[in-house]
């Protein structure tokens, strides 16, 4: 019984990791770069959500339209910031050694974290309850609440949308072409830079959505909240096979579930350590990840 409850919690966290991991994996696909600032975009999503919600007074008068605007405005804001980061921090280093871009990514991450503390303040903010928690399902002691269900449903919806974009639209095909080779893509007339911007935009949208979804159940929002989920989502992306979208989703779910099981059955002290244990293990024994190389769709 307890196991099922843990599974529900794990899937809920797992979908969040999956959403963030998709951004890592897509950017890696088109640039072969680990965008370490990606976890901080997740933080910005929650932060923007907080400010927009306060500005619109959603806490006092919650309505469907307002909640939706909170979500969409913060997603859009993060999307643009993601595009800006690529344009001004990574693009100038496109031809530089990869280590330079990687160090820059770490630098951008630190900038967002410390800049966030400077601008938003280091103290946690209370994210207004956009949606009130209520049970929608109870069986003995297993409880599923509406927010858990929503996290899962919205994540699933976003992943389907993303999958559709990548597989069916011309822009999505172009993303896959760019991930194959920048030169070959340019030679057939694909505007490579625009495709890369688009990839950052999509990835940042998903991270922002994850930030807001998490804030619905964990309303404490602060500038360093992206570090741990960002790292874990990175582990999820590596676990699934970096560059592989299906892998990122599966990796995210495995991370979420195993983490909740570890804190439930062993000790919550080992929760974070376990994530890095997975990383070390996968790097030692299957560095290409679960779906790496032979996966159904490489991006």
């Amino acid at each position, binding site marked *: 019984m307890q196991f099922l409850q843990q599974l529900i919690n794990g899937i809920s966290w797992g979908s969040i990791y999956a959403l963030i991991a998709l951004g890592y994996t897509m950017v890696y696909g088109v640039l072969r770069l680990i965008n370490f600032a990606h976890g901080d975009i997740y933080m910005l999503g929650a932060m923007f959500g907080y400010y927009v919600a306060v500005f619109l007074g959603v806490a006092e008068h919650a309505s469907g339209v307002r909640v939706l605007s909170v979500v969409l405005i913060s997603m859009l804001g993060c999307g643009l910031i993601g595009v800006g980061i690529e344009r001004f921090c990574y693009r100038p280093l496109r031809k530089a050694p990869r280590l330079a871009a990687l160090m820059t990514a770490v630098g951008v991450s630190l900038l967002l974290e410390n800049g966030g503390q400077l601008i938003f303040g280091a103290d946690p903010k209370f994210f207004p309850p956009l949606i009130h928690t209520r049970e929608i399902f109870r069986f003995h002691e297993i409880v599923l609440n509406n927010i858990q269900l929503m996290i899962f449903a919205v994540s699933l919806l976003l992943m389907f949308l993303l999958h559709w974009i990548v597989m069916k639209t011309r822009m999505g095909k172009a993303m896959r072409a760019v991930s194959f080779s920048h030169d070959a893509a*340019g030679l057939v007339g694909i505007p490579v830079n625009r495709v890369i911007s688009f990839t950052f935009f999509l990835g940042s949208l998903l991270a922002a959505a994850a930030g807001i979804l998490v804030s619905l159940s964990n309303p404490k929002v602060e500038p360093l909240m992206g570090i741990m989920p960002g790292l874990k989502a990175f582990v999820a992306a590596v676990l699934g096979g970096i560059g592989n979208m299906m892998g990122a989703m599966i990796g995210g779910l495995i991370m979420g579930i195993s983490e909740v099981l570890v804190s439930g059955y062993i000790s919550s002290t080992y929760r974070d350590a376990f994530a890095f244990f997975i990383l070390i293990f996968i790097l030692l024994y299957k560095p290409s990840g679960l779906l790496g190389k032979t996966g159904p769709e490489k991006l």
Partner: protein
Amino acid sequence: MLKINNLIVSYGNIKALQGVSLEVKEGEIVTLIGANGAGKTTLLKTISGLIAPVSGTIYYSKNEKNSSLNHMAPHEIVRLGVSQVPEGRMVFANLSVAENLDLGAFLRRDAREVRESLDKAFQLFPRLKERVTQNAGTLSGGEQQMLAIARALMAKPKLLLMDEPSLGLAPILVKEIFETIRKINQEGLSILLVEQNAHLALQLAHRAYVLETGKIVLEGPARELAMNEEVKKAYLGA
């Protein structure tokens, strides 16, 4: 149609092209022959905007309109009407044949015209139609070459740059590919063909250039060059 003047390209300290001048006129097949490392691929990459030249000019004219290709992004050059079939084919291995072809028309908006181009591509290479849902990575070398050519044609180019289309193909396929090149040229496409197979290239082309360590050492009508003693000795194995 394409006019290159005194083009210099270098990789770090190594000069790959040391002042190359070359011209392709409308309706021509021009071939560029030369040994490995002579700079043939570098030249095509520079025309397509993948490499920035140190100095020199690349002019392309279409309908009396003259444009410099220097400092243009690869996709802008494609938009002007200059496409390339790159060395090693470079088909998007992780995409299906249909998706590869669709991306070839990335810059075109008119769905009906794109459809027409697609039909034409299948007419040219019926084999691709049979494999349309297959991943390009699973095609044979010859089929990949066909796909690379068809993909480039999907952009409706006026000038096609081809880098070693015969590389690694069985002789019968090479013949087929060269037949196709002749056919698309007769339909009005100008072609700049880079080849190691000088024998075939000189048979096909109207004019030819011989590139040696970054310099043009010979040029002239292809037929004359095929008779030239030096060319015979160095490139035709006679």
